């Protein structure tokens, strides 16, 4: 038995189950905060539209399946691409004008874009959402002994950890990643080497957005595909990012998973507080380590 005094006791096996579920939410936090961190590192823009792009990823999957009959597996590739393309349009038409301004304007612009995207979708698709079933190969439950885990959720944990790892490798171990890291430190110098930094910025934004879109595809079979699905999520991800600090890629990933787990535990022991636990953690981190768990002092 695992007990929190005066609150609740839980058999250990049930606790494992709950931890596993926390990990699934953590996967979404990690993917989204990772995208935010990549974008912020390079563009110095806090992408408020991240939640809307996540929603877009889910909607594109739904749309691909009902109009073109493209199944989940196709959506896993095409939806992030489509979201990335939308991001390219946003960056090329509007966002790039923000780089020379105070970073707050980037936040405000992406906030406005979010309103437009979400409002439009709500207008055309209502709020109750669209169905999107898990792919047949991943349907059904998996009996782990201590719990029944839907196969699809197991898949989400695995694939999102892989995606995070791949992103981390891409940034830390490849030539393109080296460009990105260098340009994050000193974009001007990198340009004098002949690297097209403005193009890199566009692609970075698209990549971060595609990660959000990817998370959206993963979410579509779990949550109702609704215009509202990203609205509150983005604020939670902000809190994750503040708690983790924007400093490191690994930090964003690890904080995402940790806070997902913590939220999962709260859902068992004191569910009423599960909506605010991440914010509370953020506040505590701010008191003790203002730069965030993985951040460096400015």
């Amino acid at each position: 038995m695992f007990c929190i005094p005066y609150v609740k006791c839980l058999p250990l096996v049930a606790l494992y189950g709950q931890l596993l579920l926390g990990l699934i939410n953590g996967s979404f936090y990690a993917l989204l905060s990772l995208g935010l961190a990549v974008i912020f590192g390079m563009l110095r823009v806090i992408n408020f539209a991240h939640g809307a792009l996540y929603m877009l990823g889910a909607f594109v999957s739904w749309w691909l399946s009902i109009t073109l009959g493209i199944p989940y597996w196709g959506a896993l590739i095409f939806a992030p691409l489509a979201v990335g393309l939308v991001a390219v349009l946003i960056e090329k038409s509007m966002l790039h004008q923000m780089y020379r301004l105070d970073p707050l304007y980037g936040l405000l612009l992406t906030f406005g874009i979010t309103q437009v995207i979400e409002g439009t979708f709500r207008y055309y698709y209502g709020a109750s959402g669209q169905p999107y079933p898990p792919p047949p190969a991943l349907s059904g439950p998996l009996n782990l002994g201590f719990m029944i885990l839907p196969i699809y959720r197991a898949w989400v944990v695995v694939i999102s950890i892989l995606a995070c790892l791949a992103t981390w490798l891409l940034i830390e171990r490849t030539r393109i990643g080296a460009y990105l890291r260098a340009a994050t430190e000193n974009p001007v110098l990198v340009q004098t080497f002949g690297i097209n930094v403005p193009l890199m910025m566009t692609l970075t934004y698209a990549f971060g957005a595609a990660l959000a879109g990817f998370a959206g595809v993963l979410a579509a079979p779990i949550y109702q595909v609704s215009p509202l699905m990203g609205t509150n999520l983005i604020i939670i991800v902000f809190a994750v990012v503040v708690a983790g600090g924007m400093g490191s890629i690994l930090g964003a990933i690890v904080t995402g998973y940790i806070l997902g787990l913590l939220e999962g535990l709260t859902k068992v022991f004191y569910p009423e507080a599960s909506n605010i636990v991440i914010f509370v953690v953020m506040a505590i981190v701010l008191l003790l380590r203002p730069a965030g768990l993985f951040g460096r002092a400015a």
Partner: protein
Amino acid sequence: MSILAQQSAATGELRSRLNLLTLAAGAVAALVAPFVIYPVFLMNVLCFALFASAFNLLIGFVGLLSFGHAAFFGAAAYVTAHAAKVWGLPTELAILTGALAAAALGLIVGFLAIRRQGIYFSMITLALAQMFYFICLEVPFTHGEDGIQGVPRGTFLGFVNLDNNLAFYFVVLAIVAAGHFAIWRIVHSPFGNILKAIRDNEPRAISLGYNSDSYKLRAFVLSAGLAGLAGGTNAIVFQLATLTGVQWQSSGEVILMTLLGGIGTLAGPPIGAAITIGLQTYLAAVDFPVTVLIGLIFVVCVLLFRRGVAGEILAYMRKRG
């Protein structure tokens, strides 16, 4: 650097003749308006004008973008409504209690948020306000999504019957004018001079011996209290306090009002509030999603129109001498 880096509209603004003229025109308009336009709508505009101006005190004169200001507006609405309805406090005391509660909340949020700067500050205020929203959703005294309803309007100072919309309008006008006077006073006070100095160049202000964090925190609390004054008044006008007040979307709207009217100008936020509330009210019947329109205005403002209405006018006047 503050968000003001691109514009220089604020300096010495209210001293010019132009401003006296604007002020006079505004006063006349405010006095005549309720006879032409529906007073309840005007009261809504006035409350949000004060809310936006309180917000502007922070962004325009201290350079802090709070993305959670609705928490103060909404908290004051709840406390005022509760005080008037359950405790039976007289209306003016209820509003005052609400404003003080908002200031107290501002102290807590500000204390945490001031620890980080720039964009982080915004994200933290947003997150804390969202946390406050969830708390409001769940604590019993707010009555969840039903809100506190049927708040008595009562009488103001014991003799103005507030059930009369016109009489109430002038009371709201007086409260909002007093709030604006307070903001004007703060901006043009010795304290305000230091705030502007911190906004312009924080390291330099520190090197002159000013503990900038403490000044920012005090400004934050003042701004929260004034936002609360607006929220409390709004609660009495509509006789209710609901979750809408504390939603983060409301924080977004107040940013829009200020941006649209002109950040760092004193006339801007009320102008922005009038336009935004006007759009929300008069477009409610049009089959076009209001949020999309608001979003579009936001985008256009940020891209092309960063000085806002008042800022553009000031810049135009300045160019013409």
